[in-house]
């Protein structure tokens, strides 16, 4: 069984192999400490523009390449109208399951039918708030939490994700930094989902098809301004 003796056996084996390559435990400890103290500088990609407008545009272009759709609104108050318009274009009706968190809980949704809660089988449309995003590949970052059920990111056929522009970073490292700031000592949460486009598979004859197990459609609504009213 995997008990303490297995642990010791494996670590001794690794230690002996590395020792034979001329590295002592002390050197290995020092090597790890020095890399932690001074990690190699990140390789900065010459991709997303630094200004907010250019970055948003870059994000949308990358997301659309993965078959996501995007929309821009000025403030959260415009969300119900923008979502109604999107669903209308798609001929989609039916209730929306939203994360039970602001701004969703503060908005007047009528005539849309919105319920708040965890994701369940049969949810047709999900509505979630992204906690961050990276423009470099059009990727959303979502954290699990008391008002952010992870299953809601995967069970609905259509997922609508709302992204305040203030939470859009240029690259992955920038998005991680944002998430760390938001969560303080709760970081990392149980789950962080990076989501880039709808669910897909090319497992049958290399043909790309959408909506294998997760959403067939991913619609991202960017909220300009500072995320508020």
């Amino acid at each position: 069984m995997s008990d303490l003796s297995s642990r010791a056996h494996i670590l001794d084996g690794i230690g002996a192999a590395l020792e034979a390559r001329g590295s002592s435990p002390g050197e290995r400890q020092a090597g790890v400490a020095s890399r932690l103290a001074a990690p190699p500088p990140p390789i900065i990609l010459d991709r997303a523009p630094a200004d907010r407008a250019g970055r948003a545009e870059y994000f949308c272009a990358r997301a659309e390449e993965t078959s996501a759709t995007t929309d821009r609104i000025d403030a959260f108050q415009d969300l119900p109208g923008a979502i109604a318009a999107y669903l209308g274009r798609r001929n989609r009706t039916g209730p929306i399951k939203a994360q039970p968190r602001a701004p969703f809980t503060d908005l007047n949704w009528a005539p849309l039918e919105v319920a708040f809660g965890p994701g369940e089988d049969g949810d047709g449309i999900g509505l979630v708030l992204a906690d961050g995003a990276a423009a470099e590949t059009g990727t959303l970052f979502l954290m699990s939490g008391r008002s952010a059920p992870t299953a809601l990111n995967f069970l609905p056929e259509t997922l609508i994700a709302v992204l305040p522009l203030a939470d859009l970073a240029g690259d992955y490292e920038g998005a991680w930094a944002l998430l760390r700031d938001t969560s303080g000592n709760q970081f990392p949460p149980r789950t962080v989902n990076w989501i880039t486009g709808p669910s897909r598979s090319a497992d049958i004859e290399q043909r790309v098809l959408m909506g294998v197990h997760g959403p067939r459609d991913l619609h991202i609504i960017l909220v300009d301004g500072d995320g508020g009213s």
Partner: protein
Amino acid sequence: MTLLARNFSANARAALGDTQLQEALQRLRGGFVEGRRRVVAKLPEFDALRDRAAEIRSHTIAHLDQYLVQFEERARLAGGQVHWCRDADDARATILEICQAAGARLVTKGKSMIGEEIALNNYLEANGIEPVETDLGEYIIQLRREMPSHIIAPATHLSKEQVADSFRRHHRNLDPARPLDEPAALLAEARTLLRQKFLAADVGITGANFLIAETGTSVIVTNEGNGDLSQILPRVHIVIASLEKVVPSLDDAATLLRVLARSATGQEISAYTTFSTGPKRGADMDGPDAYHVILLDNGRTGILAGENSEILGCIRCGACLNHCPVYGAIGGHAYGSVYPGPMGSVLTPALTGLSGAHHLPQASSLCGMCEEVCPVRLPLPKMLRNLRFEAAETGAPGGLARILVRLWAFAARRPWLYRFGTGMALAWLAALGRKKGYLRSLPGLGAWTRSRDFPAPEGRSFMHQWKTGRRS
């Protein structure tokens, strides 16, 4: 690990004659190889990222014990349980014990090569637990009771007709007359059936693309979202990972993710990259109550002590398979190992010993394409050569190959004999092919000339022409 590598020659011959397989291999080249070329062209920093990715992997392997202990400590702080397992038996027993303690009848699985390596499904079945693969490709080969033929596209060797046939045979309660001609219909059927499995599962098992020491986090990369549903919905999440999956930090993982999908499927990034740390927190709305990580050795410490320890840096993108002319000609099953292609030809003998797998390092033209495309710059040809040396020292391959190489070596050390021999051979071949300029068949080399012609030599060797002054 089941090993059928000793049948390599027969397997390869059968694969070359299999037209359906040859079509599938052609599609693979069009999809993954072309996709990689496109996204790499769009990223001028790709080579700099590969250098960094290689540095991250070699640094981690050189400090493996430190990072594993750090990972364990952080995972435990987050409420996870870490199990160190020496071999497949150890890992399977540990997983079964966790499943039984949870009263599990049904287990959903994300795609995991470690699961294949330890043949977990058979073991769970034998112990009364139903394992269901949820990656579409893995699900298909599970129905067909086959091994994956590719480390990231396990069912790439199959046609849609073969998949439809398997679905009809196994999904007995559906209308037998339903149309399954289009991949979309196959996918919709699998989605509906597997959704019910996700919802009913007691335990979810996933692999790990990376383990992050800094935070005690496991990472999975999928396009379907199946790994996520496998790990969110059941009460227990078990991660199975081999020792070398660990990396130092979240930022290091970001660098590796930048080269992983680009090298694998030709995507800039896969649809879903998921970072999991411990079980659900107190107030979380969903997530598993328990989180276990199996750290599997199964021969890795032995590899670390050997001369091919660089293979531990592999991030399983599959680029070396996609670009290998040998893999491209015979597909994955011919290798007879869970891990096919160039990385598999190095990893398999290292895990199972060379005796049953000595054909694998020969299954390469050493053209260097695998090293050329490797996102972490593994010296795969060098490692294959190391294994050839080792095989020669231990007496495999034997027989005729050894005698011929000895003869060649004898002549090569005696220039007069070598020149005499090549001169005779050239004159003879030139005489044989004088009329056409090429040779349809060569005595004793029928296998070689069966599929191609041999150009007839001019009749004089380079050395002869040099000596006689014809230097232009």
